[in-house]
């Protein structure tokens, strides 16, 4: 038994690693940047000081969020890139310099060139008003190509144009002389010092334990789930949401089992009777009915006054203030939860009952049941005592999926009935690219899947003592 337990727990480790890697990898692949998305972009008019201030803010936020560290334990990269690329925090700068490096194979020279462009832009913005506005606008238009192009010929051509344009205004030329020479010399240098062959040499950088993934995972394991995008702790968000999901699911599970098991058994005992045939058909149809269709239909027909059938309360959870008496609030909420519970129940009910019937039919054909009947045992006792336990296997398998489903919540049901549970939280977080929340929910649900499997295994042993934990 102990050996079995340890084996089960050992399987959990690769699962955890796989899921955390998947979630982490996905969060890194999302469009958008976790730092700059939270900050306001600087305005162009502010000049050098505002750009500097923005950079300082980015640095500070990155430090707070731990994003100024390497992403992973190691990185595979070409030799053209240094092991410190992650320290460039501004995504626009990182992308542009990477693109340049991808051409010339020299990171530091590319970086110097990029900085000279930035310097040029700052000086251009800081020019006094006496300078011809026309020339300034022309120069600024050229900037984007200097920033984003990476082809040598194009860059040289743009530089030539910039120099020609600047020459139109002697005041400007005088003011901008140093940035311009810096720009042209760094551009020349970038291509004279180019080492394109370096791009083709693979290199593995080792960063050690102080990386984003490691910190994230260790924090998760000690229960520190971090902050969501809106600054609220993830724990708060989840604990608010899990409450609704749990209520709905616990009621669902109790209802489903309480109806399905007797139904399945009766159906199996009276096999091929009218009762059995009609239940089987109904269950099959129920099982095939997509939840989101039924939920939509119920909402459309029974919660709106449109067809004169407004039997149930509308979607959402009602809007009684928290100062209202508890019982009033309870009944209000319960009224709103009737339909979600029905929708959630019917599928599991159909599934459990069908499984129960199948398992029971198989058991009832066994020799020992015939023996029990032959020796004159009451039919009730044969069914409920001798057969039930052995036909529980398929039901037990269900337990494995109950835990994760209960917490993962039914995304559709919560979406359609507008219930702020876990499924809704997950969906909203996905739409908002709120990765701290998504990561936590994915990990929690995976954790519960493993626990569910584990509980199912224990129950197998209880239902059939022959099952030994090898």
């Amino acid at each position, binding site marked *: 038994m102990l050996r079995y337990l340890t084996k089960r727990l050992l399987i959990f480790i*690769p*699962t955890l690693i796989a899921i955390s890697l998947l979630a982490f990898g996905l969060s890194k692949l999302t469009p958008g940047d976790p730092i700059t998305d939270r900050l306001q972009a600087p305005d162009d008019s502010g000049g050098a000081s505002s750009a500097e201030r923005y950079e300082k803010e980015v640095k500070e936020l990155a430090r707070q969020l731990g994003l100024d560290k390497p992403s992973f334990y190691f990185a595979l990269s070409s030799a053209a890139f240094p092991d410190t690329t992650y320290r460039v925090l501004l995504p626009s700068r990182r992308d542009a310099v990477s693109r340049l490096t991808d051409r010339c194979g020299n990171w530091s020279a590319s970086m110097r060139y990029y900085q000279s462009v930035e310097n040029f832009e700052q000086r251009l913005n800081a020019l006094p008003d006496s300078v011809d506005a026309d020339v300034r606008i022309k120069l600024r238009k050229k900037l984007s190509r200097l920033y984003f192009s990476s082809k040598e010929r194009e860059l040289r051509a743009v530089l030539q144009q910039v120099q020609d344009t600047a020459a139109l205004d002697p005041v400007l030329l005088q003011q901008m002389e140093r940035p311009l020479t810096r720009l042209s010399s760094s551009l020349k240098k970038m291509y004279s010092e180019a080492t394109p062959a370096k791009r083709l040499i693979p290199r593995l950088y080792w960063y050690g334990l102080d990386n984003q993934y490691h910190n994230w995972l260790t924090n998760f394991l000690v229960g520190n789930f971090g902050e969501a995008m809106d600054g609220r702790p993830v724990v708060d968000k989840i604990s608010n949401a899990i409450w609704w999901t749990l209520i709905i699911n616990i009621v669902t599970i109790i209802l489903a089992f309480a109806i399905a098991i007797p139904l399945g058994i009766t159906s199996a005992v009276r096999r091929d009777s009218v009762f059995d045939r009609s239940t089987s058909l109904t269950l099959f149809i129920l099982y095939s009915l997509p939840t989101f269709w039924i939920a*939509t239909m119920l909402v459309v027909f029974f919660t709106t006054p449109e067809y004169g059938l407004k039997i149930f309360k509308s979607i959402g959870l009602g809007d009684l203030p928290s100062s209202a008496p508890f019982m009033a609030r309870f009944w209000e909420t319960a009224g709103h939860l009737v339909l979600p519970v029905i929708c959630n129940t019917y599928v599991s009910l159909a599934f459990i009952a069908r499984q129960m019937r199948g398992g029971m039919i198989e058991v009832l054909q066994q020799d020992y049941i015939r023996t029990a009947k032959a020796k004159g045992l009451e039919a009730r006792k044969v069914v409920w005592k001798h057969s039930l336990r052995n036909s529980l296997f398929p039901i037990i398998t269900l337990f494995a999926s109950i835990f994760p489903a209960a917490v993962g919540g039914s995304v559709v049901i919560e979406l359609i009935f507008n219930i702020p549970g876990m499924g809704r939280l997950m969906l909203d977080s996905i739409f908002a690219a709120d990765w701290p929340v998504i990561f936590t929910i994915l990990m929690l649900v995976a954790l519960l899947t493993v626990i569910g499997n584990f509980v199912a295994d224990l129950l197998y042993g209880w239902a059939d003592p022959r099952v030994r934990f090898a």
Partner: protein
Amino acid sequence: MEQRPSVHIDPPQQAQGYWAKSWKQFRKNRMAVWAMRFLFVLLMISLFADFIANDKPIYCKIEGQRYWPIFKSYGVQLGIAKWDRRFLPANWENQEYEYEIPALIPYSASGIDYRNGNFKSPFGEQQIDSWTERHWMGTDQLGRDVAAGMVAGTRVAMMVGLIAMSIATLIGLCLGAVAGYYGDHRLQVSRIRLLLNGLGIVLAFFYAFMVRRYQLQESGTELLKSLAIAVGIMILVNLLARALKGLPYLGQRITIAADLIIMRFIETFTSIPGLLLLLALLSIIHRPSIFNIMVIIGLMSWTGIARFIRAELLRIRQLEYIEAAQAMGFSEWRILLRHAIPNALGPVLITIAFGIASAILAEAFLSFVGIGVEEDQVTWGKLLSLARRSAHAWWLAVFPGFAIFITVTAFNLIGEGLTDAIDPRTRQG
């Protein structure tokens, strides 16, 4: 000429017997047979969707000129034909037709009928010129025909089932077959090959996808080039491994516990909350497309097939005919591909039937939620989701939902029929 040993096993006849018997058993299940017929209708609808619902006429005559616009549109899509100038702003309804054979439903799924916007009921009054233009299943807010959307949705659903399950079957078959046939003790590889393949994967990734990451963003052909580079590196590495087979230590063969590794992998994979992961995966894709959904659903639903095929092969590889094949000196691959896998396919069919049902359901769910489907793609799930926002348009809730339901049920029925027909435990007579 050397005479070959004349051992005659006669596999085709035996295999035919098995399938014929299963088919006979399947035919006894009337529900399943009806489901098959219904499926056939769906397939026909999705094949000829363009002729069933289209705002272009099938054949028309304008100013003495004859046109076959729907056939022509295929040519235009393939790049071998060009539209006549008169059709360039695609104003099919404003043409002066001398003669016209319209499609069965004279609307396209995403075409807008401006006169019949704002939710026209199928039974209510509609602004139409003749009964052929009636919106038999109503319209949505913009005036798009629901019936045309249903036809387009049929095609999407069938393609999802087909593509997703093809991918899943391919992966599941490969992994399941290796796990089941080789087990823990029979897969032997030389150390050098293992080592070089590991290295090869890293190098292939580096040269095909890292060095070329900016080129990859440019066009689709770059991706093909990258794949070619990756495949080339892997071939090179394996050739090298073959050449170095003679080395003393590295050339030795070691046993790989294929079954253990693959089963652990499957176990890990099934612990991943699939639906949630699917949502997360699709949310990061820049350009949403229905094909991404098909591929990802396929990539996520192979575990069942792999398990089934593994279990079957574990049983089959103990059988005598495999031993006979080995004794005759057939290569392991030949035995696996020609003799073991074909006999394990029966149970896999069952999983595939149920798998298609859940793939269709998953796609409907995703487009219902609105993740990963492009704006102008009409699917059943998307039509159904319109009903959430407009409760008075009952036809938006009833028709697409019923289509999903009946299709999923048909595949489930076929799956059940196959279970009864193929599973020896439930087979009667």
